């Protein structure tokens, strides 16, 4: 009996293509993010695409997963970049967004996206991957843990400096 059966058994997976994001994917990315977070951020995602999907592509990766079976619909995306010397850190791959269509979960799409961006970073000469997860979001935290991520050498700190002058919440 394979000892890994109880943890790694994969359900039937839809054929999936992970590729670089294109301009015509962004509306779907905006809609997917708005559905998951409950907050539409169209300008933010267009800006992210302009910066991470079109410039310095050797160190910036905006990838989408699409299903050929579902009419090439974008089912998830991941965005990351190589950052160097922030807080004294040697070059490192940062993943700062990863989302999967809630209707397409449990099909290992998040895992495929994570593996794809890991390969991109690895090909770019990077040996460490980093992300940040909300402490009260066990779904995201468990996902990254299941991909082998552990606590890194930094601790994120923050301080309230009062209500923003504009009265708007911070970014």
């Amino acid at each position, binding site marked *: *009996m394979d*000892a*890994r*059966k*109880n*943890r*790694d058994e994969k359900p039937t997976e839809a054929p999936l293509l992970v590729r670089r994001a294109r301009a015509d994917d962004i509306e779907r990315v905006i809609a997917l993010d708005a559905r998951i977070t409950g907050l539409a951020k169209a300008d933010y995602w267009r800006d992210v695409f302009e910066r991470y999907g079109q410039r310095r592509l050797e160190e910036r990766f905006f990838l989408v997963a699409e299903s050929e079976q579902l009419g090439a619909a974008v089912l998830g995306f991941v965005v990351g970049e190589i950052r160097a010397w922030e807080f004294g850190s040697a070059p490192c791959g940062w993943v700062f967004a990863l989302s999967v269509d809630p209707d397409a979960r449990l099909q290992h799409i998040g895992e495929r996206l994570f593996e794809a961006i890991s390969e991109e970073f690895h090909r770019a000469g990077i040996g460490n991957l980093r992300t940040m997860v909300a*402490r*009260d979001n*066990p779904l995201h*935290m*468990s996902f*990254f*843990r*299941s991909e*082998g991520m552990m*606590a890194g050498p930094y601790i994120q700190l923050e301080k309230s400096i009062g209500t923003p002058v504009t009265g708007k919440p911070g970014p």
Partner: protein
Amino acid sequence: MKLQIASRLAIYALLDLAAHPDTQVSVAEISEKYGISTHHLAKVMHTLGRANLVRAVRGAGGGYRFSGNAKRTTLLEIVQLFESFAREEDEQSGPGSDTETDRALRQVLDEIDDIARATLGSITIATMLNLVDAHRIGEKAEIGATASHA
């Protein structure tokens, strides 16, 4: 961070059982592997049974089987069967407990507890099994490297 012995025994036992979900393992086998008392482990297994994480198999060659969901059950759920993360009552009402100094100290200790809770709550049995595998592979590689240098 220190776990009570019962929590550690429960995690050891569950990892051994979940690694071979179709095999029954006796309390004696687990006790021997970790060098722990069968009496203590039997009590732990009883608690795990009540939580539906293990199932007792009766008869000759009986023992326990894993009956939980390895991809869903977290270390926090296991640990909370045996201990609490809540502050002890004497800490809440003992000397100095109603001072600004204690409230400041409590803020720091709560931060540590929150991180511990988030960590244990995000690591499933399946993730732990992969981590155990990684250590096993690491040990083998280390032994191989030592042998090649011998």
